């Protein structure tokens, strides 16, 4: 079943077409990788799905209903949560408070909560931040801040999770841990769309990959097909061995 569908999605920033007639879809439970050169429009697409931007033309549907044009909090309450490439936390609040905001204002807010603080701690434990409970978000390292964003997004109880470069700044050993974490999230039945440059992660997690370049979709397919695609190699991967790891 298609959980998310975009049809001819286009957005102009002034004279620049940041995305041009992009068709895409996500099946329920799928993990889809979104890759492309810097400036290709990946984050813009996440901004459109999550309501941070409205398309100039085209439609985005979630579970068959149009969501493009809705406000971001409305979209969050329907079950779409996200992280940000440049971290947007409540920097002067503690780590658990950030998560608590997710659980109280997200999709889960209607459910009678017995112990939201306990739930927040469980999410923190899941992402590996349970020891940081007395720390302000701004005092975390950048990678821990990204992890906290993931926790906050998960606390909203999303059906669709949009991840914007959660692996950036992790070393290879840490990437392996993060891959495991995302597989666990996927194992809970959450559909995932992830923007990522860490090819090792994209290749091992994604069921399917979509490639953007200059605001257009230039390729789509299984990971093994994508890394052999000539256009993708030319515009994105390069021929360097080390760039790909």
């Amino acid at each position, binding site marked *: 079943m298609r959980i998310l569908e975009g049809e001819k999605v286009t957005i102009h*920033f002034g004279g620049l077409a940041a995305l041009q007639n992009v068709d895409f879809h996500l099946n329920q439970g799928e993990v889809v990788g979104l*890759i*492309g*050169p*810097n*400036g*290709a429009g*990946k*984050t813009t697409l996440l901004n459109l799905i999550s309501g941070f931007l409205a398309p100039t033309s085209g439609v985005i549907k979630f579970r068959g209903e149009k969501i493009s044009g809705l406000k971001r909090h409305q979209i969050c309450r329907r079950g779409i949560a996200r992280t940000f*490439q*440049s971290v947007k936390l409540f920097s002067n609040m503690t780590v658990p408070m950030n998560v608590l905001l997710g659980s109280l204002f997200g999709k889960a807010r209607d459910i009678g909560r017995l112990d939201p603080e306990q739930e927040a701690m469980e999410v923190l434990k899941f992402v590996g931040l349970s020891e940081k409970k007395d720390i302000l978000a701004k*005092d975390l*390292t*950048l*990678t*821990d801040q990204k992890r906290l964003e993931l926790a906050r997004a998960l606390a909203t109880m999303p059906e669709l999770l949009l991840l914007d*470069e959660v692996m*950036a*700044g*992790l*070393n*290879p*050993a*840490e*990437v*392996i841990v993060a891959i495991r974490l995302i597989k666990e999230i996927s194992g809970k039945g959450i559909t995932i769309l992830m923007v990522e*440059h860490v*090819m090792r992660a994209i290749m091992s997690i994604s069921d399917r990959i979509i490639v953007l370049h200059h605001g257009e979709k230039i390729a789509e397919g299984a990971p093994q097909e994508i890394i052999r695609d000539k256009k993708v190699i030319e*515009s*994105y*991967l*390069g021929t*360097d061995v*080390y*760039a*790909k*790891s």
Partner: protein
Amino acid sequence: MLKVDKINVFYGKVQVLWNVSFSIEEKEIVTLIGSNGAGKTTVLNSISGLLPLTSGTIEFGGSRIDKMPTYRIVELCISHIPEGGLSFPDMTVYENLKLGAYIPRAQKEMQESIERVFQMFPVLRERSKQLVRTLSGGERQMVAIARGLMSRPILCMLDEPSYGLAPLLVGEIFRVIKTLQEQGTTILLVEQNVKHTLEISDRAYLFENGRVVLDGTSEKFLQDDYVRQAYLGL
């Protein structure tokens, strides 16, 4: 050229660096590796004068710099390209680059420097009149690196330069760093792309919990079983 001697640094009551010592010779590429939270960024911030030392000393070219304000340290031609870029979002790309060359020595060579960084990152030439906030994350990272090179540094410290860059550009960044070294710049590098960083470096220091626990040539690091397992993910 740079000598860090037994520095101790605190954030409030929490000690984050413990008797950290290391040195860099002229025209070397030295890499600091370690997990997130190990103290690598704190080391760079200490060298730049952004954090006070509780004890210990930092010498550059034989003179103490550890009590100098940051702007004076920059005037000594030490450049710091911070993690996550931190470019000025409401200024144009061109203005950001100009700011990178504000020290007198660099001002004279500004036009030439701008041409040089535009050659490294052609997309910045196209975007030179755009506000940085309208750029993508990866393009902002390029602005930050380019700005850091505008001061014509003698010592260039790069904190996660490949952060957020597409694979094609990651390769390009490593080539740029190697070229800088060949042109005579000394490099202190913090980078999570550990394997390829070690391949271009001369020496490395491993940080764990705010302490230096291993040092040696890059070849030694690449062959070390512990490093391979814990940091290279092999």
